[in-house]
């Protein structure tokens, strides 16, 4: 089967006052379609950086990243944006909802941005799937943390992405709510046949994925 993402000898350096800091030191990873992958590691180990590289948000210092057969490091910002627009979805730890928009408007936003047809129907359907159709007119400040993350999940799945990147999606939630969100995430992933790349420091959550990697001292190590 053809891989969706392929990382080869990825290095990432950051300049600082004390000199250059090596965040990633030769990471390798291959992700197959519909696979669920978890990346764990301590705070500051570079998990979010690795996620941003895989999603094409930035370029590595060295090494090659293939995302849908395209070498990301050879593409400019707009070309990478084009791939994201068509194939990629995101879920964040702090939900990243627009405070002045209602739940429905937040889900609508990416579809409005890319002129999708029947956007409103699709958005309402997505909200229904995450069990929030009755809260569609509420603003984020009127929703609980779990509800806000459900809206974010609805927004991520509504455009039917091939790969979903989730950065600590339950990091801001209590145990019960986190469990509900985890279930929802895997359920939707299976229904919509999406590839899931998950970054978390919660080993229990990570163990639900097919493969788990740990980022340690800049290197990616497979755990099971």
């Amino acid at each position, binding site marked *: 089967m053809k891989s969706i993402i392929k990382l080869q000898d990825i290095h990432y350096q950051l300049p600082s006052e004390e000199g250059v800091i090596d965040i990633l030191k030769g990471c390798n990873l291959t992700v197959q379609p519909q696979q669920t992958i978890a990346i764990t590691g301590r705070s500051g180990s570079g998990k*979010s*950086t690795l*996620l*941003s590289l895989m*999603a094409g*948000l*930035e370029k590595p210092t060295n090494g090659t990243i293939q995302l849908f057969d395209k070498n990301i490091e050879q593409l400019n*910002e*707009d070309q990478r*944006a*084009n*791939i*994201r*627009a*068509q194939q*990629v979805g*995101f879920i*964040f730890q702090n939900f*990243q909802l*627009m*405070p*002045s*928009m209602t739940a429905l*408007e937040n889900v609508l*936003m*990416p579809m*409005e*941005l*890319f*002129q999708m047809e029947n956007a409103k129907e699709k958005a309402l359907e997505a909200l229904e799937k995450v069990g929030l159709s009755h809260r569609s007119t509420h*603003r*984020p*400040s009127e929703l609980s943390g779990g509800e806000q993350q459900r809206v974010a999940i609805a927004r991520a799945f509504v455009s039917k992405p091939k790969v979903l990147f989730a*950065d600590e999606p339950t990091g801001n939630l209590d145990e019960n709510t986190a469990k509900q969100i985890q279930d929802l995430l895997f359920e939707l992933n299976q229904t919509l046949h999406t590839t899931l790349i998950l970054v978390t420091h919660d080993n229990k959550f990570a163990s639900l994925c097919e493969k788990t990697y740990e980022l340690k001292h800049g290197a990616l190590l497979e755990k099971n």
Partner: protein
Amino acid sequence: MNSSTAHYWKKTKMTRTLFNEIFVASLWFLRSLKKGDWVWLMLAVIIASSTVTVVKQLGESVQQSMLRKASESLGADLVIQSTRPIDYQWSELAEDLGLQQNRTTSLVTMALTKDQAGESFFQLVNLNGVTDQKPLRGEWTTSNLLDYKPLDSNSAWIDPGLLSLLPLEKNSVITLGNKEFKLAGSIETSSLINPMTNIAPKMWIQLEQLESIGLIGPGSRVSYRLSVAGESEALDTFAKRVREHDNPAWQLTSAQAPSRDLGNSLDTAWLFLDLSALSAVLVAGMSILIASRFYLARWKQSIALMRAFGASNAKMNRLFAMQMTWIAAVSSLIGIALGYLLSLSLRPLLAEYFQPLIFAEPGPALFTGFFSGLLVLWTFAWQAFRSAVNTSPIHVLKTVPDQKQNLNWFISFLLLLGLISLMLNLNKLHWIIGGVIVASLILYIAAELLLKLLNMLQTNAKGWFKIALANITKEPNLAKIQLVSVGMVLFVLMLMTFVRQDLITNWQASLPDDTPNAFVMNIQTDQKQTVDQILNSVKQKTDAAMVRGRLVKINDKAIVSSEMTNPRAGRMLRREANIAVMSEIPEHNIVTQKMDSKLIQHPGVSVEQEIAELFGLKLGDLLDFSISGQEYRYQLTSLREVQWQSFQLNFFFIIEPLTDRNLPISYLSNFVLPELPVGTDQGNKDIAPEYTKQLAEETPGVLLFDVRKIMLQIQEIMDQASWAVSGLYGFTLLASIIVLFTATLASQQSRVQSWLLLRTIGAENKTIFKVGITEFLFLGGLAGLFSATLAQISGLLISQFILDTPPVLNINLWLFSIVIGSGIFLIIGLITQWSYLQKSAQQLKNFLAQN
């Protein structure tokens, strides 16, 4: 698919995308509008565009009304006055341009009449031949002393003053030249053109009659006038053609500047009005600078998210540029509508001050108001806009520093120049560019210094005081903008307060209450005592001895009027000038240069500065004057500055009195007559006609010249200009209040975050209150320090380069500015923050979640 089909589909897709983006941007704009986002930004644009609309609409109306007033005093919009007949091609040009016109020919002649007993009486009159029965602008007032009839070929009108000089009554016959005219009425006029030269009472007959009664011949001193009135564009074209013709015998007088001093005062008023509007717009711009940072910072995270979702940088630019344009366009439309409504509501008030009120066509004001709104938003929100739309998508996962782009500053600078050019005359652009560069440098340095000062203070502070300072310095760039914006606003207000006060004081001082309003001329030495007796009850009478003479040689070189390149110099030499004979220079003249008394070798003459420049005269030059056919030599010992509009006794030349020079001295006096009686107030009879009659009877040849009406007109124009200037000042104040409010809004979120933290860790209400108050006192105080520094620098520059006075450091200004800055900011802080200071930790948390 061939290439043309591919091109067609590409084009169609692009058009579809563009329309879709317009739709999405409009949708987002409406959504935000509904939720009350952009309020302060829109309010600032509304203030800017409504201020510009009101200022331009009222300014144009006031300007046109004042011009009309000046035109009525002049009897026309533009007058060519010449010593030679004015060719009829100029009348044709005026007609082609659609201008109204009339002609007047004037000369001084003797009028003869007989009383009932048959005794003859003579009087020197200023006889005017007119083509029209009324002036082009305004009306002539008919005196009720005689019945009024229109002029025909056998009739004449007289100035009411002539009634006291000649035994005239209804249907009296006056001989002028070789023809007799029947008296048909008496009319009163007041002219702002050379009021002091029209010394003889006026008479009017038809122009054809004047040309046929044998008074005009070779050597006659005749003055020809062509007056025109009409649309300003046509007038400008006409005036341009006249100036290009450059006829040395011509003198062009425009209603825009009926006299030089009045013209200068009005020019200053217009400039102040334009600058006031610009100040209001710049002040509103400061508000936009702060508010745009606040709003667009809120959008940053969303933009990063959209870019992470795959929106290109260009798409973000387009979507947000469209939203900004929506904000600018909607706010500007509201602004111009409000501005125009406000102008309409002020119209009745204006009509009380300006009669007749010419309410200008609204088109230009609405156009300028709308585009000022668009430009002011883009100018001041550009930096925040660019910074927001360029947010990297990585922001969704981690914090990365923004990249600085110097090009953005350059674009802001260009936009600012565009905005200023829209509001001020383009010919001042080089000054504007210079000013903006200097101001930008000062602002940059000031912002850096102020922040350094704050950081220093914070390092050494402790407890709640340290927290308050930390709140200000938490976002250094925001703190810089707040300090500089508020400082600039305080500075603009201070500057406008001083300049407005200065302008009004100067205008009032130019015509104080005790300004002389009447002159008596041509008093011979043997008549002086009698004149003094007649005028013994008048106030503040001043006399000056004088002779009539002509400058004929400079340093032994004869000067001839026809050789003069400057037409004004030529005109000066053709006629005799009044030369004062005085031992001291009058106090109301300012001596600008004085010769060392040891070097003086001849009797001295003091020369008015501009005349000296006109003839290239310098101290020590030898000037020969021809007085009564004899030449007298004087040495130029001093130069003087003269305020001609002051109505004091002023002369181009003042010569030293010498006993050995038997000069034909006569006297000139000025004094203060009581104000003209208003309406039909019979109990307060005007005394001037009685004086005129007595002087004519007892001292023949002595003429009284009453300038009260002219002074009244000048005073009215000045009052109107003062009113307009004060009104505009009010608008700038209003805009400033908005800036001060937005300045607190910009840092509201981080301030509330800090208070929430303090509340959470158990800080008492009193402590949070102290932190809040200190923050505002410091922001205001530092802004005050900044504005005082700017004011001091401006003051020093003005002293050094404009007023030529020694520069003075004003410590009180600094103290005043700091106290006022702190005070204003404290009040604004209390008004805007009071409700937050009372909120519980949970309520503060809710506020942060919603914003």
